């Protein structure tokens, strides 16, 4: 049966508008979920809305500077062939550091793969992160994971997988467990705008809505899922409005505004801890770089799209604000840059001092709590094979 095109027509202007002007649905949702901002683009802010002191802001500013420098340095290292792969967060630093700083130390963080800044803020040594990137003998993951898939148990920073959105129900489970144990722990889970299309996003938010698990769902809406722009990911006008269907609170935050992200996360955390349920925070930001070092955005993204976002640069904005407050000057900025460069240089030297490969037996460690006979036999098998012919362990020369 052919649909009746006239009767069934649904347009952007609304169904059967017939001359009566109706507000466009997009504008309606953007009004309902207004973009929360504290820092204006010129670095000014209403003093009554500033909830962090200068010392803490300066500390986070320096972390953001370090993260930005780390991105540049690691991309260059990858191009030199010294690390295999890297995922940066250039342009998204305020979203990562503002939210992580708003949580309590005892809270768990369930990262996607673009938030290693949160692990650094939680105390993961930079040299340890660089060992992870190198997959060398100093890597706590024993070379089991590719770069940028770090885990940091002492900082309650969970393990990262490449499949999208899987960490969302896991965060709900951890939060739910804390609630059952009557412990004051709120889980913060990060994911991108692409993840909102995944099953695990739906099931995670649904279970959290029903169980009232204390979770903060933080969507880093950076506009792109590799080459797919946000508009092709979902027909929703905003990500935040998706919360409505799960019976939870949704908010839209300027993700390039450290203070706004901090405040919104802080409030969401407080509500979760008070038993008022989870919040979906949409942090609107922009992926200024490639998806990863394996990606080339020039194939799908016109460079002029970046222009408006350069003015909204999160580090620039916070820097302007700190200068207005007298907490930062040219000297302070130079010092922060020099500190970042020195930290990365020193950590890299430390990381590169480890053996290039973890010992052979680590290949079989941690599959199970104790190896089964298969792992024991296969370790002996690879040992014997290498002893018989060391080429078994030689670098791959490729098929050419």
């Amino acid at each position, binding site marked *: 049966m052919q649909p009746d095109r006239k009767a069934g027509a649904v347009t952007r202007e609304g169904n059967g508008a017939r001359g009566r002007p109706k507000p466009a649905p997009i504008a309606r949702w953007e009004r309902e979920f207004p973009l929360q901002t504290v820092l204006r683009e010129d670095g000014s802010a209403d003093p009554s809305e500033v909830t962090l002191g200068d010392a803490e802001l300066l500390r986070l500013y320096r972390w953001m500077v370090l993260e930005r420098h780390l991105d540049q340095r690691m991309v260059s290292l990858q191009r030199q062939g010294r690390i295999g792969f890297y995922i940066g967060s250039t342009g998204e630093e305020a979203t990562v550091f503002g939210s992580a700083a708003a949580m309590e130390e005892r809270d768990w963080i369930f990262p996607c793969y673009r938030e290693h800044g949160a692990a650094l803020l939680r105390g993961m040594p930079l040299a340890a992160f660089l060992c992870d990137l190198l997959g060398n003998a100093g890597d706590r*993951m024993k070379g089991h994971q590719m770069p940028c898939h770090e885990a940091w148990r002492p900082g309650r920073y969970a393990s990262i997988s490449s499949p999208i959105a899987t960490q969302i129900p896991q965060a709900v489970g951890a939060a739910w467990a804390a609630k059952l144990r009557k412990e004051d722990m709120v889980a913060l889970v990060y994911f991108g705008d692409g993840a909102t299309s995944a099953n695990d996003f739906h099931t995670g938010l649904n*279970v959290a809505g029903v169980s009232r698990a204390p979770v903060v769902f933080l969507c880093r809406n950076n506009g792109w899922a590799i080459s797919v722009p946000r508009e092709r990911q979902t027909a929703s006008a905003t990500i935040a409005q998706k919360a409505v269907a799960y019976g939870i609170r949704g908010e839209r935050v300027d993700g390039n505004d450290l203070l706004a992200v901090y405040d919104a996360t802080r409030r969401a955390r407080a509500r979760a801890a008070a038993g008022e349920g989870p919040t979906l925070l949409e942090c609107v930001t922009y992926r200024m770089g490639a998806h990863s070092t394996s990606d080339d955005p020039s194939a799908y993204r016109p460079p002029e799209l970046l222009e408006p976002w350069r003015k909204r640069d999160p580090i620039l904005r916070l820097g302007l604000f700190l200068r207005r407050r007298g907490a930062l000057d040219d000297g302070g900025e130079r010092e922060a840059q020099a500190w970042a460069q020195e930290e990365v240089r020193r950590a890299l030297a430390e990381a590169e001092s480890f053996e290039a490969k973890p010992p052979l037996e680590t290949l079989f460690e941690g599959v199970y709590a104790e190896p089964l006979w298969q792992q024991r036999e296969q370790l002996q098998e690879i040992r014997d094979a290498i002893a018989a012919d060391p080429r078994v362990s030689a670098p791959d020369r490729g098929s050419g």
Partner: protein
Amino acid sequence: MPTMNVIQAVNDALRTEMRRDPSVVVLGEDVGRFGGVFRATQGLQQEFGPERVVDTPLEEGGIVGTALGMALYGLRPVPEIQFADFIFPAFDQIVNELAKYRYRSGGQFACPLVIRAPYGGGIRGGHYHSQSPETHFIHTAGLKVVVPATPQDAKGLLISAIRDPDPVLFFEPKRVYRAAKGEVPEGEYTVPLGKARVTREGTRVTVLAWGAMWHEADRAVREAEAEGVDCELLDLRSLQPLDVDAVVASVQKTGRAVVVHEAPRTCGFGAELAALIQERCFLHLEAPVSRVTGFDTPFPYTLENEYLPRAPRILQAIRKVAAF
């Protein structure tokens, strides 16, 4: 000793562990107020409350993903998947997350939990209430896979699985959920994972089986014995870890092996067992290893008796292998 069926033994194991360890929680579809569609969790919510026996929304990926997060935080969740056929929405959470969490974090994190799922056919359930998906999970390093055949093993193995430091898939033989009865000790006891049970000693042919098909194999070896073919029957009980030593010891003695499973033949666990036997018992073998299995079709509704490797088909294989 009380007599129980498999369902009652599972229920008793859950109750025993929940009384012993407050971190044990049960979650899944219909497991709480209703006590599960097979009644395996009956009465648990009444005793332990709705916080520890949780009716979840419907979606297996969410059930397993949530349970995984609970385990990371220190609980011992026992999620139920209502039918093993419905486990596939959770496949990513099981294969890419649960199985790899310890390994990928370099041992920093672990998520011990037990996924219970009724499996197998012979209940007129068609292909969405009859599958035996064990091979998918045995093939994934990091998971343990346990399949009890009897009430006594169901309780002892489930208690071991709940106490195990690794994630375990616990496939329950729903064809014999109520039909298989036996004496089950009261209170706590464990049956170790990775230990097969020689349920009948013999010298001519080794028969390897597990779960519901162990009962068919048991019938077949009794008939074979009446015909003068003295079989040794092993109930493997745990497929990963596998008691390879017990398999090898038996086949080295008999020189002949028949492997029985419900799942389709191609890449079924029987293929792995046949490969292990030829690797380790080659010079002892008197006949090719025979596989009596489900066929390479989806599980059928009407012709399920023809599909299932029941006693008469197993007996034919035993005769053929013995006469080779």
